[in-house]
């Protein structure tokens, strides 16, 4: 397997594992188990878990189940592998949202700071996995071009 495909696979595995393990298990008290969350907000949280798993699986299938490395397939693999993370970063721009737990009286955990600037682990993970997926795509695209006769 080329390292480009490996990077796309890392982003995809991140989509499958990180949301369900971190939000669904490790921080369940702040999400699905949060007594202040109304039932329908929990439904949207569960939707984000399922969409992340489905997108990650779709990406892995494209990377591993097909012998092709053409630009179209790898582009879709990179998109499906990183769509959850791009959506996560974009979600912070909607009104009233918080990457962390600001204003949540049941789970008040301030984010880590660096020189006074809040560093949200989910945003950092989102940036890292998005970069990994699209650098992987660029690498596969370049290697496909260089192997063409």
């Amino acid at each position, binding site marked *: 397997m080329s390292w480009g495909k490996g990077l796309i696979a890392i982003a995809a595995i991140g989509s499958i594992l990180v949301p369900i393990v971190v939000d669904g298990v490790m921080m369940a008290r*702040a*999400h*699905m188990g*949060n007594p*202040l*969350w*109304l*039932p*329908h*907000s*929990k*439904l*949207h*949280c*569960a*939707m*984000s*878990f*399922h*969409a992340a798993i*489905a*997108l990650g699986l*779709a990406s892995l299938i494209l990377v591993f189940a097909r012998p092709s490395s053409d630009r*179209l*397939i790898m582009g*879709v693999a990179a*998109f*499906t592998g990183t*769509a*959850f993370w*791009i*959506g*996560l970063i*974009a*979600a*912070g*721009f*909607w*009104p*009233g*949202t*918080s*990457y*962390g*737990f*600001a*204003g*949540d*009286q*049941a789970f008040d955990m301030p984010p880590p700071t660096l020189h006074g600037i809040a560093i949200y682990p989910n945003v950092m993970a989102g940036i890292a996995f998005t970069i990994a997926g699209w650098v992987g795509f660029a690498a596969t695209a370049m290697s496909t071009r260089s192997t063409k006769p």
Partner: protein
Amino acid sequence: MNARIPWLRLFIIFVALFAGLGGFIADFSETHILNPLWPPHAKFHNGQTMSMGMLLAVATMVFAFLPTSDTKLRLIGTAILGTLYWTSIVCAQFFPGVAYFDPQFSEKEKIMILGHRLTQGDMGSILVVAVWAAVIIFLARTRRTT
């Protein structure tokens, strides 16, 4: 002449746009993102699903008309992208403590469509089954004629 119009791909694009734009219109309201009872991080997960719905709708439209010789793969990929959001809605109902609407908006839980009162899950199930049934029938017919 009708055969030239890609009805199936247009149908899948409609399903994807229904999720992306419909989700945005429905959720940008007092029942969701403007609900003062939702903590900010709950709204954040709502923002995630809205953003993903729109991203998937755009990806479905782009993928549906990408030039490729592998039209079977293109159709299956378009169907996956176009139904993924609805599939996640259908699956989400199985988590504990979730609901299609919060108690104060329970009268909005079922939407009247063609004389039937449907939840979002019912609607999602119908659309996902309709898309995949159409794709399977189309592929079976294509195989028979080739």
